[in-house]
């Protein structure tokens, strides 16, 4: 098992004919992801060559899902059109299958476009949105697996640690840390650093708690908002598996946006200190340095007899 994405999940690529879309589609096929084709309005009927093999392109997501029975889609559409791409996918998945996972990689989508898109997705309960502005989701397999996004596939291995993070490269850092203590990953999810996004920490924690393959969790947050505090409080009541946490931005000055649109301390709220405190109160083992995540995780695993 894993969460939301099985190793052999059938995946579509929206924006597959674009430079970014094609580059990453190729990398996903190389990793072993079961890419079944893509969608670019106006380019239906064409094919795209990935790892030396042709893949079909459809005009619309309805046509693409109809033809492939896809389980998930990944969006590499530029910011002006990305929110609409999310809604098109949500509509098609909902209408045809009543379910589907949408992973949006695009960075820089207007916030009010996301307000609209998130409400649209939430009106379709079978649809899950991950992102935007995120590295995506990966479920490593024994050989290959499902890599849906831009993360470097080769650093992962199948295992029992679930990882959820707001940041891309910090997720890779966490993956490398699990590998350093000979642990693999069940599923890794980047939920993205935008102020308005789809899937949040709590949904990921709930899914990891319910997933038999996952035995421990790494949760990585950053300054801005209070999603980490809410997730910690929820975890204290509902998660029995060990959680290891880190929060980036302890040295960030207030009122300055630190790269991610959502990473800003406003009105003295959303500081790393506040979030670490909430983690500790919830019994989450904290690493103050991401290069210590492995050591802290190992201790947590030992404490519950998993090592």
């Amino acid at each position, binding site marked *: 098992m894993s969460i939301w994405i099985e190793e052999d999940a059938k995946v579509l690529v929206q924006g597959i004919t674009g430079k970014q879309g094609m580059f990453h589609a190729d990398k996903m096929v190389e990793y072993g992801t079961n890419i079944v084709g893509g969608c670019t309005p106006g380019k239906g009927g064409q094919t795209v060559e990935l790892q030396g093999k042709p893949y079909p392109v459809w005009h619309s997501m309805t046509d693409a899902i109809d033809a492939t029975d896809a389980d998930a889609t990944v969006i590499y559409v530029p910011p*002006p059109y990305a929110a609409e791409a999310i809604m098109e996918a949500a509509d098609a998945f909902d209408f045809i299958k009543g379910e589907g996972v949408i992973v949006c990689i695009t960075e820089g989508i207007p916030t009010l476009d996301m307000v609209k898109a998130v409400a649209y997705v939430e009106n379709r309960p079978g649809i899950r949105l991950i992102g935007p502005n995120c590295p995506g989701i990966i479920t490593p397999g024994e050989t290959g697996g499902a890599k849906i996004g831009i993360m470097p596939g080769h650093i992962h291995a199948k295992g029992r640690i679930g990882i959820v993070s707001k940041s891309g490269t910090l997720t890779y850092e966490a993956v490398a840390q699990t590998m350093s203590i000979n642990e693999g990953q069940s599923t890794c999810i980047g939920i993205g650093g935008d102020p308005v996004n789809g899937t949040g920490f709590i949904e990921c924690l709930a899914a990891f708690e319910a997933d038999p393959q996952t035995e421990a969790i790494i949760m990585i947050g950053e300054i801005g908002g209070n999603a980490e505090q809410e997730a910690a409080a929820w975890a204290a009541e509902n998660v029995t598996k060990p959680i290891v946490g880190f929060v980036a931005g302890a*040295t960030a000055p207030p009122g300055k946006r*630190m790269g991610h*649109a959502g990473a800003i301390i406003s009105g003295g709220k959303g500081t790393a200190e506040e979030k670490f405190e909430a983690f500790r109160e919830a019994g989450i083992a904290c690493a103050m340095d991401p*290069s210590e995540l492995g050591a802290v995780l190992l201790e947590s695993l030992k404490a519950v007899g998993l090592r």
Partner: protein
Amino acid sequence: MNIHEYQGKTLLRENNVTVLEGVHCTNVEQALAAYDSLGSKIVAVKSQIHAGGRGKGTLYNPETREHVMDGGVKIAFSREEVETYATNILGNVLVTIQTGDEGKLVSNLYVEAGCDIAHEYYLALLVDRDTKSVLIMASTEGGMDIEDVAHNTPELIHKVVVDPNAGLLGFQKRDLGMALGLSGAALRSFGKMLSNMYSMFVAEDCVMVEINPLVRTGADEIVALDSKISFDENAEFRHKKWDDLRDLSEEEDVEIRAKETGLSYVKLDGNIGCLVNGAGLAMATMDVIKLYGGEPANFLDVGGGANEEQVKTAFSIIMEDPNVKGILVNIFGGIMRCDIIARGVIAATEALSLEVPLVVRLAGTNVDEGKKILAASTLNIHAADDLAEGAQKIVALIGGGQ
């Protein structure tokens, strides 16, 4: 992106939100002409800077730092007072609770007609992360610091969450207006104003509109007496006119140049420069430098697909800061290959004849090739295997913390 009050008022006026007559001025003569043209006995003379707390701020001479005047927003009762206030404000530095000690140079002034105030309210529209919707907040406690009101008397803050599909509904406007104690003509005026302001918020891609105070006049009209508007930078592509509204003097020059080359840079007060890929990792790198006794000089995210040229630009931006005594490069190569970064680091070091110690930590795609390239160079570059080692090395190389 923030805009000035006078620009916000123009936008509000264009969107049929009632504001008072006012004139934007950049010198004392214009301020006096504005007073004459407004035909109002009483006018407000308001410093225009991108920071709150102007009224309670203090003006200083930019060179001597001598005290000039208390209050960056003044009520003038005569032409002479307009002249005094405008002279004291323009060209001087205004320090408020939000500007920091150095304050901000005031180059713009807004002279606005007075009005008959019956009551002051607070109103704000913003994108709320919890409800993932536009949130409207209002309070009867206008003119006060809203953080204090929220802390001391939260029951006096009233909220409405707008469903993005339904838009702002009639009952929500009524409920909010009545919670503020409005009725009759004032309630109708409030409802109309709120509809127009919400439409503007959406059409103009705002992330925040704050009106403090919003006032009810003696004639029961609702008027926006102040305006603080922020736009969503992500929506810049569909708002060409923002170019004209942007006040570059309010932004750090180096941060603007960084942004133009696709880098995200924020200057800090320490002495260890950082060059990192990814916003989260860049923050974590700063944190770890501090954890091991150093002080980061900057936040710098080169993004996911940086090339040799961008790495070079990043180095030159870091080195513009005279406080920088050493640099820590931390790259987890995903899309970005470590060998490309290694070549970029060497090219930049040579081109800029970098003299400060440099610690490079590489991980991820093509890491071995990247490390080989660095090891083969004769430059003063130190390698590290993980972030902790990198941070400890650079702190040691510059001789400990500050």
